[in-house]
């Protein structure tokens, strides 16, 4: 890895400019860990099928200044944006001037992470920022932590249900150089409040991009969260996207991850169920073509009794693409009466595509219900013949069947504008050969 010197220089400059405080300390710990652990290789069990080290052969620039314009933001807004709070990140940094906050400050607070760490939120930031490192103790996560700078803090206030959802647009400017972004955000969903959060990713320009993202979400008693991740970037855009959600009060979380395009995509979706009676639903859909690689690692850590979780991830791999699903469920000794279900279903469309799927259950309590299952198959020949015997050409018949396969995940996207948007994206993605 020849860019370690570059990271060191950049890190030292950042520390010199802002040497004190919670965030500077976290950065220091992060960089120490990064220097010690390095980037994971296929020899690390957790990264066996996803070669992230190859991403570091590139001479990235952690570009601070970018001339992304409002017109460029306009081009990537998601449907329903007129009713949403739009948070724009350029090269990993939150850009207040390009963002639009529509909610009242009595419902929703959006602050630069550095500001939150100083003032009234400093205890909250100190308590919750980087809790994810307890679970994601690897060099990739540590690298993100080393460069916490320009992140964002989002707080949904107690008892509030903001009528405006939150959309996060991650823009990577790779017009001049290969671009590395390290966005970091902390989201606090307070007691009895509601949040609907969507993230999308866009690379500008034709150089490679690498988005190494960490979002930490803290969910308190009686809160409800919907989280949507839509990954439909260009073929040389890679990312490691870690979403670490801690349900510290009895609450409900619903997530859907859609991966359509990209280079190497690794998603870590962690759910820490740290209160009795939590409910969690994780859904995912990956439709891969070309040389795309998508790796969905999920973790449900059941710490307290009576939690319910359900996971359904589905995928289609065509051409020479590769998909990985690793679903880890931990049931700790106190987590009696846990109900945890997991299912992963795949369709292989080409002889050269690969799917690796692995359930991983670690159960330390004796009164639990856990199940898991996975399938890898092909298009149903009988169904294909039936459709063709009615005059529907082979290609269209395949698209119909694949859409049907994807439908139960798309249906989990609750807001209508996003659901139709994703549905259309998927149709186009499947229809183009």
């Amino acid at each position: 890895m020849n860019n370690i010197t570059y990271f060191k220089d950049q890190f030292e400059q950042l520390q010199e400019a802002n040497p004190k405080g919670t965030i500077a300390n976290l950065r220091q710990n992060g960089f120490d860990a990064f220097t010690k652990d390095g980037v994971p290789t296929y020899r690390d069990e957790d990264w066996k099928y996803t070669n992230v080290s190859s991403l570091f052969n590139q001479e990235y620039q952690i570009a601070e200044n970018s001339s992304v314009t409002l017109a460029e933001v306009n081009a990537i807004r998601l449907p329903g944006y007129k009713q949403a709070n739009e948070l724009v990140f350029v090269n990993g940094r939150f850009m207040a001037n390009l963002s639009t906050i529509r909610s009242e400050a009595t419902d929703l607070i959006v602050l630069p992470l550095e500001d939150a760490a100083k003032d009234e939120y400093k205890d909250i930031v100190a308590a919750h920022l980087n809790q994810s490192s307890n679970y994601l103790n690897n060099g990739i996560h540590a690298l993100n932590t080393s460069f916490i700078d320009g992140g964002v803090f989002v707080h949904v206030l107690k008892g509030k249900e903001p009528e405006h959802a939150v959309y996060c647009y991650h823009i990577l400017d790779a017009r001049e150089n290969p671009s590395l972004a390290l966005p970091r955000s902390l989201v606090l969903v307070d007691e009895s409040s509601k949040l609907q959060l969507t993230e999308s990713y866009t690379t500008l320009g034709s150089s490679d991009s690498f988005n190494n993202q960490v979002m930490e979400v803290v969910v308190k008693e009686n809160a409800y969260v919907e989280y949507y991740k839509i990954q439909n970037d260009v073929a040389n855009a890679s990312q490691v996207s870690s979403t670490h959600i801690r349900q510290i009060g009895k609450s409900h979380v619903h997530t859907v991850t859609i991966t359509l395009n990209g280079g190497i995509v690794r998603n870590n979706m962690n759910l820490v169920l740290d209160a009795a009676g939590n409910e969690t639903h994780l859904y995912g859909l990956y439709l891969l073509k070309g040389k795309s690689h998508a790796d969905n690692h999920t973790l449900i850590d059941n710490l307290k009794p009576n939690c319910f979780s359900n996971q359904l991830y589905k995928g289609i791999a065509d051409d020479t693409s590769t998909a990985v699903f690793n679903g880890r469920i931990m049931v700790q000794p106190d987590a009696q009466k846990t109900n945890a279900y997991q299912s992963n279903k795949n369709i292989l469309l080409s002889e050269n595509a690969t799917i690796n799927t692995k359930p991983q259950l670690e159960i330390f309590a004796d009164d639990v219900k856990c199940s898991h299952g996975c399938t890898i198959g092909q298009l149903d020949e009988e169904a294909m013949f039936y459709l063709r015997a009615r005059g529907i050409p082979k290609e269209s018949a395949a698209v119909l069947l694949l859409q049907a396969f994807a439908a139960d995940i798309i249906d989990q996207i609750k807001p209508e504008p996003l659901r139709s948007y994703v549905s259309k994206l998927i149709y186009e993605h499947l229809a183009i050969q």
Partner: protein
Amino acid sequence: MLSVKNIHANIDGREILKGINLDIKPGEVHAIMGPNGSGKSTLASVLAGREEYEVTEGAVSFLGKDLLELSTEDRAREGLFLAFQYPVEIPGVSTTNFIKAAVNEKRKYLGQEPLDAVAFLKMMKEKMALVEIDQRLLSRSINEGFSGGEKKRNEVFQMAMLEPKLAIMDETDSGLDIDALRIVANGINKLRSPDRAILLITHYQRLLDYIHPDFVHVLYNGRIVKSGKKELALELEEKGYDFITDDIDLTANQ
């Protein structure tokens, strides 16, 4: 309309059809009867273009075209319809959308404009009444959770919507009770017309109590061994297949 000449067909290297000859003219209803394993469903599959079957000899012409050269979907769009013995359940694909896609694919192939939503709904309503099928079934996924009778009714409904030139009904009577059989047979009778031919494939004579064929053929061991008018079916019902097959086996052994 359909001319089958000396068709031989294999599956997995085993010869199932051993020289079938059959001529069907517009407006005619033919019934192919035969014991289990005689090749009835294979004949239907070969005509519809199922790829597992390999035609080793013979020719089929359909409306002047070489049927065997056409893909499954093109055969359908030329006007050939296969009502499946076991209609496939396809979760997640709505029956209505599927039929609309099928109707419009056919129209496109024939150089016609696609039906708009209003015209399509109007057509649906007419045909639904014709074959006595409930709207509720059509808003569900294709055949998903349908009873045996509902599946067969859905096949006849699709036939009504696609208005084929030749409909091959593969054991459409199998698994139906008397009431369902009557409804399905009524639907098919209403779809008889001077320019549409129907090929009924059945094991039992009872379907022919409802749909009167012009010709009856007995298929045995991959060949049509006897053809006649509808009285042949009654004779088969009375005497069983043995009265024909014994003769043939006897001849073959001499």
